Structures are given as C-alpha cells and as structure tokens.
C-alpha cells in the first residue's frame, strides 16, 4: 500500500516472486494500514492510520480485480490504528417434512430441506438426523441432492 492506494500482485507459484497485475491499484482511505481478506476471497477491507474510515472492495472471482463497493468507505467506531478481522456469517435453517400418517409396513420418506440465507457460504455444512432406533430398513434410500450416499437409515420403531 502506497500513497493511499492498495495494489495487487501475482505470486509466482514456483518462485514466490511478485509481479504487478495490470490496472491493479485503487484508492483507499488515508494512510492505509491494515488489510483483511474475507475467508471466501470475495471481499477485502482496508483500515487507515488516520481518521476512522474503512475502505471496502469486491474481488472479481474471474479476474481477481479489486473494485470499491458502494459505499466505498464506512465509518469505524475507533479512529487511528485498529485491529481488523473478517468473520463469515451464515444463516442456516432446517425444515423437516413427512406424511402426517403412515401404516405399519409402509415406506415412509422424510425430507429435510437445508437453506443458507447468508450472507456467507456455509462451509462443511453437516446435517445430523435422528430417527427412533429400529432394525435396518431394506428399502433403498436416495442420497441427498448434493451429498454422497450414506449408510442405510434405521426404520422408525416405537
């Protein structure tokens, strides 16, 4: 960071050498001091050593180009040098559905819908499902829409 700008470089994977990316400099707050990248790599944030402003940027997944967000700056609670950390934030929800009634011996399908309202991606999302214990079911069970097949589920028994 120099002259109130943030600059981007490529890192040579073999040598570790830096090279300037084309059109890779953009303005920041005065006296940029700290930069933090969002864990998902989509955003960057820069604090300044002067004043109480923070610059915020989007990072193109395709090109890596850094572009100021709107607004380009936001006010921070403290002026001058502050710590800077980016914590992702997911908003997960589960909904379960099943037939209201079933007969003994009948096949029964439970559907679990999982959503993430964001703003961040939910990494390593895991669903723990509990059915009453029972003997293994002979019925085949399709896998989750985006999950690998699992071991057969126990049949419900009460």
């Amino acid at each position, binding site marked *: 960071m120099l002259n109130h700008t943030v600059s981007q470089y490529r890192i040579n994977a073999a040598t570790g050498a830096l090279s300037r990316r084309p059109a890779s400099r953009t303005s920041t707050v005065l006296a940029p001091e700290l930069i933090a990248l969002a864990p998902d790599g989509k955003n960057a944030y820069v604090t300044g050593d002067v004043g109480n402003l923070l610059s915020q940027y989007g990072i193109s997944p395709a090109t890596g180009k850094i572009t100021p967000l709107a607004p380009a700056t936001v006010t921070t609670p403290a002026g001058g040098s502050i710590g800077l950390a980016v914590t992702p*934030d997911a908003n997960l929800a589960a909904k379960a559905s099943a037939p*209201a*009634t079933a007969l003994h011996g009948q*096949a029964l399908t439970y559907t679990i819908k999982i959503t993430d309202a964001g703003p961040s*991606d*939910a990494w390593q999302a895991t*669903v723990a499902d509990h059915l009453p214990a029972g003997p293994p079911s002979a019925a085949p069970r399709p896998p*989750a829409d985006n*999950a690998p097949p699992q071991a057969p589920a126990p049949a419900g028994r009460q």
Partner: protein
Amino acid sequence: MICHLGTLKSGDAGRIHIKVTVRANNGTIRDTATVTSVTPDPRGTGNTATAATKIIK
C-alpha cells in the same frame, strides 16, 4: 445419521431424503434434523427441525 453437504452457497438450499419402512404398530415417529457448519451462525435459531408421523392401523 450424519450427512455431509459440503459447502452450501449463500442463498442456496439442499434436500435430504430419508426413506424408511415403518416397523411400529402405533404411536408417533419423530425425525429430528440439526444443521451445523464451520461457518459461524450467530443467530442460532431454526437450525433444528422435526417432522412427526402418526402410525395408524
């Protein structure tokens, strides 16, 4: 049972279908599912859901 969904993109949804055969003769079977992630979910509400099925004769 544990299902690993991998990364669930912001705004996306996934579904899990669990097919069983009813062995009970009566009562109610309740399936409870809880979703978690490495990504913090500070709200912490709505992550558990239950579906109940009444067994009839």
